[in-house]
């Protein structure tokens, strides 16, 4: 495809081709400091018109590639950056066969990692982005990649996808040149991508040992609460947070049982980001130290 780009994000490399120049331009600006991709690429993503004439006429981007969701609605060309991000996530979710993929945000301090997993809307991305600006290294806001051979977590520091209210929170803390364009009225509301800081990008191939697993739950009227999560419950919840547990077979079983038997797990309820940040620091001091 005429417009294209290679990207290395943590252990995975992507080849992104586009029928239009704009999405590739936006991607290369957002990912300007990232290292050269290792070839051959693990995954191919294509941004293409759904029908040939939709390249020019009311252009809309449909997401294709090695692994696809054919029924997914195309996005307007202005949201091409989001389409590229979704395309890369999809390849990881459906195509990752080496590392156990957990739908979780991860940060690291002192070589030890905190894993936060929960349904979308639990505030993982926001928490990870904030922690990543305050003494923690951001490993990733979307996927945690557990290496069955080592038991370590690999970073996947793609651009953080900030939604709605979280955008302003981070705009107040981070230099403007690390943000992508504001995408208005996407299927998920307003979205603005944030490039992780230099440390997160430079150490993107440096894994960390898991030390604490949190299952955060956010709700406007949820009272603050902390509860221990037993190994069996953590195991079952993590199999459900993984898109490829079944694909990894015995390697996945061994990796995940080792993770839950060697790592503390807690569920936390919160209704304010500040509360969650405080709980994280307290539990980290108790459990991981």
């Amino acid at each position: 495809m005429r417009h294209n780009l290679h990207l290395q994000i943590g252990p995975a490399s992507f080849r992104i081709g586009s029928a239009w120049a704009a999405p590739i331009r936006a991607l290369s600006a957002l990912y300007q400091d990232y290292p050269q991709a290792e070839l051959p690429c693990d995954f191919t993503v294509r941004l293409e018109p759904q029908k040939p004439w939709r390249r020019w006429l009311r252009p809309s981007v449909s997401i294709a590639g090695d692994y696809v969701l054919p029924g997914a609605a195309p996005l307007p060309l202005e949201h091409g950056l989001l389409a590229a991000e979704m395309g890369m996530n999809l390849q990881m979710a459906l195509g990752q066969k080496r590392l156990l993929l957990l739908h979780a945000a991860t940060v690291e301090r002192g070589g030890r990692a905190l894993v936060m997993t929960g349904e979308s809307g639990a505030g993982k991305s926001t928490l990870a982005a904030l922690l990543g600006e305050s003494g923690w290294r951001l490993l990733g806001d979307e996927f945690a990649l557990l290496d069955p051979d080592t038991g370590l977590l690999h970073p996947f520091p793609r651009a953080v996808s900030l939604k709605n209210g979280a955008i302003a929170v981070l705009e107040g803390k981070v230099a403007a040149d690390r943000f992508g364009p504001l995408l208005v009225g996407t299927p998920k509301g307003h979205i603005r991508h944030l490039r992780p800081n230099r440390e997160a990008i430079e150490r993107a191939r440096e894994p960390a040992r898991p030390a604490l697993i949190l299952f955060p739950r956010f709700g406007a009227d949820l009272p603050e609460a902390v509860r221990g999560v037993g190994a069996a419950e953590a195991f079952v919840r993590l199999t459900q947070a993984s898109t490829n547990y079944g694909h990894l077979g015995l390697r996945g079983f061994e990796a995940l049982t080792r993770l839950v038997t060697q790592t503390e797990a807690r569920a936390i309820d919160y209704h304010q980001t500040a509360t969650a940040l405080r709980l994280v620091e307290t539990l980290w001091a108790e459990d991981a130290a």
Partner: protein
Amino acid sequence: MAGPRYTADPPGAMPTVELNGLTALFHVRSGMTHILAAPAPQILALLAEGPTTRETILARLTDRFAVESEGDVLELLEARLSELENAGLVWRS
């Protein structure tokens, strides 16, 4: 007595990990993971000694444990065996 004999794969083909009171089991032949509660792991352990009938399983269980039940013992054992059978961990021959 001509009841069916129950068989299970050898323990080496079913690695397990204890998770606070429950047993996580990986069944190599199917690639599937099961979470087991008592008495399922104990029954599988017995079947590791070789194919055997329902009655013998019960006799051996009673021999090794103080077996408690809220109904007909053989019927309940049958229910447990058929759960294992549905999961593909045990089959009749």
